[in-house]
């Protein structure tokens, strides 16, 4: 074939893609590349000098290795919990609840409108020492002093993050479940599968990409969060994001902050890849 003439429609397409490409390359790739280069620079007493040394990364591992593991663990915990709850919610809406399900879905998605900070303050109000739970228990005469273990710990962080992430996890799962053909579920039952086998053999493998999407979104947002742990978490158990924030802010050590960020991104991607491969293997038809 000879060289094709570039048609006017192709030019129009190119023009339409231009803004998106500019935003993507300029703001996203550009800034990431800049910080990636900086992560190898040297910082000493509020001065940053261009350099190429892996020292920043070694420092991250020695100084923050434990925090990193703790943070990834919180991410996995929150993502597993949220994805599981979201799956059962979406499954009930799709297959069991009929009209009522549509209403519940609408309500769940409406909570997306409530801001992130609003939810954090809501949980502080609910779990706090003069919060709803404690006042109720005191008024009922079940306790005479507020329970202090409700707030400012890992549990409060997990509850708050799960509440915030749940609608985000429901969306892809509901979309995928809507595409699952009910006839296939009936056919599996007909061939002798129990309800739980149908779930394991038919439903989960078919929505695996959505499971992974929900899990990844929840994991990345949870593992990268620094507001929730600061507001409802225990001061002794800060997450990786809190340390990144202080490197960029208080300490003005951008190279170190950048190295920490890329360490978090890198380990997160590796972890998600492993979990994705595990899920694929676990849900393969045998």
């Amino acid at each position, binding site marked *: 074939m000879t060289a094709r003439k570039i048609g006017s429609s192709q030019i129009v397409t190119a023009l339409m893609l231009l803004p998106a490409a500019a935003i993507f390359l300029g703001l996203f790739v550009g800034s990431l590349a800049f910080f990636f280069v900086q992560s190898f620079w040297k910082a000493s007493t509020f001065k940053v000098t261009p350099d190429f040394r892996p020292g920043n990364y070694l420092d991250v591992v020695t100084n923050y290795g434990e925090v990193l593991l703790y943070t990834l663990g919180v991410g996995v915990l929150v993502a597993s919990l949220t994805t599981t709850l979201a799956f059962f919610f979406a499954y009930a809406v799709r297959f069991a609840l009929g009209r009522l399900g549509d209403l519940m879905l609408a309500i769940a998605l409406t909570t997306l409108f409530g801001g992130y900070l609003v939810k954090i303050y809501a949980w502080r109000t609910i779990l706090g020492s003069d919060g709803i739970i404690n006042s109720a228990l005191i008024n009922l005469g079940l306790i005479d002093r507020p329970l202090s273990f409700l707030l400012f710990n890992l549990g409060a962080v997990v509850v708050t993050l799960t509440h915030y992430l749940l609608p985000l996890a429901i969306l892809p799962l509901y979309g995928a479940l809507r595409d699952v*053909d009910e*006839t*296939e579920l*009936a*056919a*599996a*039952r*007909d*061939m*002798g*599968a*129990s309800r739980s*086998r149908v779930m394991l*053999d*038919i439903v989960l*493998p*078919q929505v695996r990409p959505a499971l992974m999407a929900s899990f990844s979104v929840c994991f990345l947002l949870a593992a990268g969060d620094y507001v929730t742990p600061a507001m409802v978490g225990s001061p002794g158990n800060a997450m990786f994001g809190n340390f990144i924030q202080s490197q960029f802010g208080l300490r003005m050590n951008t190279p170190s902050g950048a190295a920490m960020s890329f360490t978090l991104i890198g380990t997160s991607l590796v972890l998600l890849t492993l979990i994705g491969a595990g899920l694929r293997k676990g849900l393969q*038809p*045998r």
Partner: protein
Amino acid sequence: MPAEVPLLKLDGLTKRYGDHVAVAPTSLSIQPRDFFAILGPSGCGKTTLLRMIGGFVQPSGGTVQIGGADVTRLGPERRPTGMVFQNYGLFQHMTVRQNIAYGLKLRREPKARMDAAVDEMMALVHLDHLAERAAPELSGGQRQRVALARALILKPKVLLLDEPLAALDLKLRKTMHRELRALHQAIGGTFILVSHDQSEVMTLANRVAVMEHGAVVQEGSPRDIYMRPANVFVSGFIGEANTLRGSRRDGRIELAGGASLAHAGRDGAVSVVLRPEQLELEPIEPARVSLEAEVTDLIFLGPFTHLHCTLANGDALLVHVESRHVAAAHRPGARIRLGWKADDQLVLDAS
């Protein structure tokens, strides 16, 4: 010899959705090796009846017995039935082989035995060359075969088929008719087929139940139902039929289209049902009933010719005759005489 125990027995089986009666109390007995068809127009409750047999729809009343055991309260996974769904329901994330093997895997069949059974089943439905093909990549006819194989490999006591061929084109449907017949004979199974296509039912079934508005209105062999339809609905639904309106007084029926014949019975409105092939041109024998008609159209189909006629009162009449009996004079606009043997006619009292 004791009467054969029915393999499947429905007793007063009913399904209501709110006020709507999808299936009126239905009782049927199906014998081993029957190819039983449930025939009726769309929306008459065929699928609902079949799904109650398979355990997918909980009946509002009545019982289902298979081999003498009451299975009414059992789910589909605990019934010895296998279902082929109208839209197949193949597992989209599996290959042909995985689809067919799924039921045996659930039964924890040893691998060697399972592979052999799957191979044999794939050969039976001509799918051996597609074993590793993914389900979404199959054509309609191939999907149909996978659905059949997947159900048959579990050797169900009763195979339930819900309009299995409705989505296929005519040519493929005819091929599948032959295959289904052969399959039924080869495995000696008991099949229940739901269909709205009377020619399919005639081709396949040895017994037919005709449904209308949720109720079985007639049950019998295809021949019985064709020759002795219980009412005008059945005669119109199975094959082509002319229904002539008339009334009876003192043992004589006067047809609105202009014939008179002797027929005993109570006075009142009647319908006389005649198959198009029971009518003949220019009857010479005096024993025949006859009437005048005008030819409106004439369709030559090789061995047979179809004549569309109108009677004196404007009613239409369809006549199938062998082409060699058609003369040049039988052209549109011609007035002709048509006759039939009194033995052939079916007289139904209007209820």
